[in-house]
């Protein structure tokens, strides 16, 4: 029971340590993959081994096709999401301000949130033809309704005493908007963005499978057409990694920063 020992300073290595701990099971899985495929002599058409996938992946990087696909997908997601947020948040706030209006409109928005994204693919291709327009519309749609609904919800659940307090302290309507309503609804907005982007990402992949000739979804689709399973696997991994990075390193911290920091809402 000694009273001395090495002093820990946990912080500097904590993040790398955590990242390693996160990667370890996945790396183990890759090893397992390789072992199973070689041990059972699995048909490469059914499931290729690790080197084949890596080689196929490398060739897509080399010939620039991966960059083209990833670029197209990310570009569509970005445009659609940004447009959606810019339109949905003001709309949501405008509607959320009046309790009566927000109660009335809530069923409408819930209905369309449910429908968001994938279900619009057929009609989107009819309206916009194949390509950028249709896909971006699907993404816009997926993010718009969810964000609008959550904004609506967020604003309408700001307790009236807060708004009264602002008024009693002489805030103008604009000031109430920027100082009270927007920050107050922000946790819900961010949660909405995160959920909406989840729908959008899935909708993106689905839409790209049928409605275009460039993008990650298309990459998958094309590979299947040519029975190039190794490209399929590579593309799946890329999709997984991109979304994981996007969600865990961008969206989740954003949600944590607003939601938990202000102690307003518990995460779902």
């Amino acid at each position, binding site marked *: 029971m000694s009273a001395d020992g090495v002093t820990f300073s946990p912080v500097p290595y904590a993040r790398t340590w955590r990242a390693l*701990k996160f990667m370890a099971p996945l790396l183990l899985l890759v090893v397992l993959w390789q072992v199973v495929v070689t041990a059972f002599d699995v048909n490469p058409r059914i499931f290729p081994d690790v080197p084949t996938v890596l080689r196929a992946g490398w060739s897509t990087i080399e010939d620039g096709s991966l960059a083209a696909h990833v670029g197209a997908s990310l570009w569509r997601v970005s445009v659609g999401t940004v447009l959606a947020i810019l339109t949905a948040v003001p709309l949501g706030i405008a509607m959320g301000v009046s309790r009566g209006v927000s109660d*009335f409109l809530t069923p409408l928005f819930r209905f369309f949130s*449910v*429908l968001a994204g994938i279900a619009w*693919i*057929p009609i989107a291709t009819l309206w916009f033809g194949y390509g950028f327009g249709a896909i971006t519309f699907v993404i816009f749609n997926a993010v718009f309704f969810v964000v609008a609904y959550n904004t609506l919800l967020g604003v309408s659940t700001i307790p009236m005493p807060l708004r009264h307090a602002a008024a009693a302290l002489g805030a103008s309507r604009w000031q109430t908007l920027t100082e009270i309503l927007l920050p107050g609804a922000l946790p819900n907005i961010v949660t909405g963005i995160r959920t909406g982007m989840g729908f959008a990402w899935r909708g993106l*992949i689905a839409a790209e499978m049928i409605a275009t000739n460039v993008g990650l979804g298309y990459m998958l689709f094309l590979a*299947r057409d040519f029975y190039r399973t190794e490209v*399929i696997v590579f593309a799946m991994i890329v999709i*997984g990694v991109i979304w994981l990075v996007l969600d865990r390193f961008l969206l989740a911290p954003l949600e944590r920063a607003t939601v938990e920091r202000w102690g307003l809402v518990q995460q779902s």
Partner: protein
Amino acid sequence: MIALYSIWGYYARWTARWPALAAFVPFIPLIAIWAFLAWLEIFPRVFLPGPIDVVEKAWELLYKGILTDYLADSLARLAVGAAAGMAIAIPLGVFVGLNKKAHDFSWPILLFFQAIGDIAWLPILLVWFGFGLTTMTFVIVYTVLFPVVLNTVLGMRSVKPDLRRAAQSLGASPARILFEVTLPGALPNIITGLRNGLGYGWRALIAAEIIVGTSGIGFLMFDARRAGSVEEIVVGMIVLGVLWYIVDSWLLAPIERATGQRWGLVTAR
């Protein structure tokens, strides 16, 4: 102005007596606006049909039995997939939730595979199983799995330690603690997971049917697109939305409320 308020008053009283009304009435102005826009023919009829055209088409599909057949197909697939998904996911979730090592090991794996998303699996599933029921069921099971597992684990971890300690000091064995304390405590989260899972599953089903299917509502919409029949597409979308809305609001949400709120564990959303 006074007239507006008195209408508002009527509305408030009616919805207080029949809350279901509040779910329907807001759609009326929407439909009215839609009808107006369609009548104005800002967009050609081929792009934006009016509500009446859609209803006529719906009737036709219903009459021919196509709508009911396809709907039944879709629902059956969803039910099978969801049931299988839950049957796998809940025990898995419980296992991961109980065992710290299992949790640490599987958490990154679960997150990664969730990130890949159900749709991205379609091409490889088509290679393995072709265009059939297996492919579709797999997609739905996959989709339902993650929200349920993750929420189950979350629910189990969010049971207050004092409750477990109380059970221990009252002589409960670890197995009894699991069934009497941890699982009931996790139930609200599990139901939320179920609800989310079904929502995602529904979407995944539609996507799979659009891309792969030979029947079902998703297929209906996709086929209609090829035939250029907008009304059918819209019918499909409305059916989807209404069906989900009904299931979610009148079946799932009340269940979530009944457990969560009654036990004072969850506050209303």
